[in-house]
């Protein structure tokens, strides 16, 4: 792998240049304190203001950049009387500063939205994307990140176009694809060649970063257990009872793709929209007749864990859990995938 280098002080310039060609999504710290992935504005003044807030520190960003492709709410099409007007296809996107686990989530969703029927809304946004990942030196959600257990971080081995390795004053840049290479060439002035010893340095940084991830679970064992015959009824019932059905774990999950569809209209004009939905909700499976195959809380809980750890894995070879820990950090009653894995692999009660 060729290793390049970019000075931290050149990041803003890189983004400034990129914003001309790309729709750039990057972590920006808002005036009110939280860091969120945001599309950088094209207009110069606004862009400069946004660039001031660019934040590549290891911070808890509440929603992964999945919303660049699959927003919480989006228009599917408009209609006027009986005429249907499709929404325009968006331009190509650069996801800058995506974390390794989140990048895995995006790659997972790419496959899902491609499979069988193609989902035009997602794919038209995702197909020409460029992902510039940044590895985590320390876990952004220290109590919850367990990427080393699932081998989804703190650095990517593949799947990225470029990956930034924080080496103090500069980022060492790994090139993971032709697209990534083209991007480096297009901004050749900013990307410098690395020194000889810097490949070693990358290795050291990565191994230190991996050591910094404290939370460890036996992920592989969990996948094995879920694949085989098992009975976790007690766990599912207990978790289902504890859950307050906010949907947060699904909304924040980088691989959750479920949506609801809703119509709205006024007079002749109207719109069909879709928004995030999830399997923990009772109404999610309730049929018009009133029959509901997952009426019970425990069955909905079962669905959630089996989907991520069993069905996704058996269908794609990839677990639906990418070990970001967000389900735990956004759960008001502290339910989380890592805790569930601990329960089924050790028999300990964690929730």
């Amino acid at each position, binding site marked *: 792998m060729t290793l390049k280098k970019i000075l931290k002080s050149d990041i803003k310039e890189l983004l400034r240049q990129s914003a001309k060609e790309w729709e750039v999504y990057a972590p920006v710290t*808002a005036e009110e*304190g939280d860091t969120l992935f945001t599309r950088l504005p094209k207009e110069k003044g606004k862009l400069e203001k946004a660039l001031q807030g660019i934040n590549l520190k290891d911070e808890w960003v509440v929603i992964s950049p999945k919303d660049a492709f699959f927003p919480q709410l989006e228009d599917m099409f408009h209609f006027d009387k009986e005429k249907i007007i499709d929404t325009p296809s968006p331009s190509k996107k650069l996801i800058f500063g995506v974390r390794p686990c989140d990048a895995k989530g995006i790659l997972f969703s790419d496959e899902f939205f491609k499979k069988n029927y193609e989902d035009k809304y997602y794919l038209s946004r995702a197909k020409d994307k460029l992902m510039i990942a940044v590895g985590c030196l320390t876990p952004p959600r220290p109590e919850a990140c367990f990427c080393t257990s699932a081998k989804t971080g703190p650095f990517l081995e593949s799947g990225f176009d470029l990956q930034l390795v924080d080496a103090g004053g500069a980022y060492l840049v790994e090139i993971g694809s032709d697209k990534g290479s083209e991007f480096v060439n297009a901004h050749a002035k900013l990307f410098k060649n690395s020194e000889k010893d810097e490949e070693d340095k990358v290795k050291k940084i990565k191994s230190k970063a991996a050591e910094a991830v404290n939370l460890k679970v036996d992920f592989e064992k969990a996948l094995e257990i879920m694949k085989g015959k098992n009975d976790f009824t007690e766990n599912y019932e207990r978790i289902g009872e504890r859950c*307050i059905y906010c*949907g947060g774990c699904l909304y924040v999950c980088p691989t959750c793709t479920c949506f609801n569809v*809703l119509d*709205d209209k006024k007079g002749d004009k109207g719109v069909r929209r879709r928004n995030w939905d999830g399997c923990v909700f009772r*109404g999610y499976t309730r049929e018009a007749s009133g029959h509901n195959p997952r009426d019970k809380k425990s069955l909905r809980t079962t669905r959630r864990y089996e989907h991520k750890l069993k069905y996704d894995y058996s269908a794609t070879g990839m677990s639906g859990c990418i070990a970001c820990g967000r389900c735990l950090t956004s759960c008001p009653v502290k339910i989380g995938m890592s805790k569930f894995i601990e329960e089924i692999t050790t028999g300990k009660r964690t929730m």
Partner: protein
Amino acid sequence: MDKKLTTCIYCGCGCGLYLVEDGGLVVGAYPSVKHPVSKGCLCVKGWNAYEFVNSMERLTHPLIKENGKFRKAAWDEAIKLIAKKFKAITKESGSNAVAFLSSAKTTNEENYLMMKLARAVFKTNNVDHCARLCHASTVVGLAATFGSGAMTNSINEFEEADCFLITGSDTTAQHPLIGSRIINSVLERSAKLLIADPRKIELSKYAAVHMQQKNGTDVAWVNGMMHVIIKEGLEDKAYIALRTEGFEALKELVREYTPEYVEKITTIPKEKLIEAARTYATTKKAMIVYSMGITQHTTGVDNVKSLANLAMLTGHVGFPSTGVNPLRGQNNVQGACDLGALANVYSGYQKVTDPTARKKFEAAWNVEGLPGEVGLTVTEIISALGNGKVRGLYIMGENPMISDPDQNHVRECLEKAEFLVVQDVFLTDTAAYADVVLPAASFAEKNGTFTNTERRCERIRKIIPPPGEAKADWKILCEVAKACGYKGMNYNDTSEIMEEIRKVTPIYGGMSYKRLDPHGLSWPCPSLEHPGTPYLHKDKFSKGKGSFLPRPFIEPKENPDDEFNFILSTGRIYWHWHTRTMTGRTSTLEREAPAPYVELHPEDAGKMGIRNGEKVKVTSRRGHVELAARVTGKVAVKSCFIPFHYREAAANVLTINAIDPIAKIPEYKVCAVKVEKI
């Protein structure tokens, strides 16, 4: 694309959430990680708070009713008409012939302006809002005992408490992010949970003791707990001596409330009462948490005073993770009270009957002759429409057709209104009776502040422009004032209103917008240097010494009899908000709870041959509704519960307009009904 921190529009938790704007659409609501209440979490309503904003049913133009039908009107025309009518009415029939309903959904600034409009421009104290229907008893009861009618402690203190006494609050449904803190405390820190509630609520499964009292007998069990505590010598004698007054009278009154006597009144087994009393009294960090189940009674003020007595008796006020904690329902019901959208007080609870306060506001507003008598309250205003004493009514963001007791009575009164203005985001059931409808901006479309249940005044921030010609409520109120010839309501933005509020409202004195960034401050915050007050009554009560105000048990107004043999209680559910104007337009929420229902105990359902899901008719002396039966052990035998959200089977057709004599709050929690199979 823009992402801005704002405050959730639903309950009093006041979670910080980022609204996400893209292409003019509000496409998301994400929890703030750094906000002290949300901490990266939200409840399902918060997560979905973006959706209704985009509804194409939003009001986008002023409407004027002509020959029984609405037509689009220009702003200028609508405002002029309002000014003309209101001026004519007051000229003919006096200032008190008009009234104003403010709103706990709107901002502090807007509530302040609404009461300023009523008082400064129209010289009436007929201004009130729905706090009257939820926590009027709290404001009165806690002010009398402690000196301050608000939640004593703060939300994060729930994470440290070792005991909770929860009564009349279905906390996980109504204040989910407080409910979750209670669940975590019980499950992870072994905090003890005591519940007194006629219904089995979600939290009941975590309770060490669940006392299922008969509806409307709260004073009795609270007195009973105090009886046990005093009998066993568990009261905090030093605290009582040092910080309170009137203990002897309390001791005298609760003497007769023996566990046996209390069991007779409340049906609570005496062992449970004793255990609850001991646990509460002997745990240092013990919080009393209550809500509408305590306040919405003809004895609402008595109930609140009794809880305050209990907390003082055990020395549980004035320390972290203790106190008496009324959970305020609406996102800004605390603020609407603080800012004086009440018939008896100006902002900061300064009494209209106090000449010094009047003088102060006359000077600040540059007017003369502010009225000194207390105005009409919400339910009184509606009734006064019926008997012609109030001829013109201006309603901002409230929907009394669905939310007020005895709907048929409300309808008759609204029909009789000579001139009704309704200002809202949707054409509500109430707006249908209006002569002029004004389209208001939603919380996503304006700036301002909300004050949450823990007295935290925090910012809301505009992320998109209002739809069509809709305008922020504060702008509309200013235009009305101007059209009426008043020159004292001109502001360029909401921070200027807050500057005025600061000057006249001591508890908000230090709350400049600059200081409210990013996560707000809790009042009292009297000066720009003051850090705010997470918990009240530290070292001494706001009023000096805390007053024990013992109250005897009084029966509810309407108990069941042979014909109307069920007790009906009404309330909210997790998925919906109030009259469903917003949550009914939120797909996930509406899907979870699309239809009205009545909860019936399996024993009663069995006797009547009613199956789960079957339609039943529920009748009170005031009307009837038809809705699906939900057969569940959540309610006690011979009682039933109906969520009040649904216009399709409005619970408030049934409820009684009997009110607490002091707080004027209606008894939503007890009335007599009969249930029939259809």
